[in-house]
């Protein structure tokens, strides 16, 4: 039974921003498997431990200076780490771009 469940877990492509590419051997996109965003990131951590520490806080929450999308939707509106992932989704990680005069 567990084999069947594993076989149906979606593997999707995660687009990595320039700033994090050194953590994944320079790749623009990497594949990861999981039914939620949290599971995808956990899968990614196994191969690329450097990425997750840039994306998640020490408490395991999404870092406020990072925006993650499933297709066109910000995961903050999809349940954050619980955001559901299905086959064919495209996940994009982007740094927040902000600043100020002082």
């Amino acid at each position, binding site marked *: 039974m567990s084999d069947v469940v594993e076989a149906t877990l979606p593997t999707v492509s995660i687009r990595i921003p320039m700033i994090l590419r050194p953590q994944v051997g320079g790749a623009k996109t990497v594949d990861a498997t999981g039914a939620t965003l949290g599971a995808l990131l956990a899968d990614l951590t196994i191969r690329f431990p450097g990425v997750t520490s840039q994306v998640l806080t020490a408490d395991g929450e999404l870092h406020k200076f990072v925006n993650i999308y499933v297709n066109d939707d910000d995961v903050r509106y999809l349940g954050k780490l619980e955001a559901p992932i299905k086959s064919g989704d495209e996940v994009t990680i982007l740094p927040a771009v*902000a600043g*100020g005069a002082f």
Partner: protein
Amino acid sequence: MRLVLPQAVYDDIVDHVLTGYPLEACGLLVGVPEQNGATQALRFVPSANLAVSALAYTIDPKVHLRAERDADDDDLAVIGVVHSHTHTDAFPSPTDVAAAPDPTWEYVIVSLRDPSPSLRSYRIQGDTVTETPVEIVDRSAQAEV
């Protein structure tokens, strides 16, 4: 190292930051990453300033997402970010330096403190700020890279 900025892109930037005044205005630069010392800007992608402030800016993440995808489709990249300083110099503030996500990006700042806009660009690596000379080229001219 220099930033090559077509006149038309420069004009788009200045129009956008003047329209946004008295708030800070912002947007992204798309082009060709540094090759042989030259970073080539090819277009300016204006963004709303989600901070809605005269003292701070936040690029609309949706604009950033679209800009990245469009750039990728064209074999280009987001090469930097533009924002205005309405009452201070065109130099990165401590906030700009602390928030800078990418050491390979150009951080273009347009100061509107004086009657005519002043545009300068910087690389920010850690807390080190290095000015990048900006070369404004005619619309038809191509950078020699």
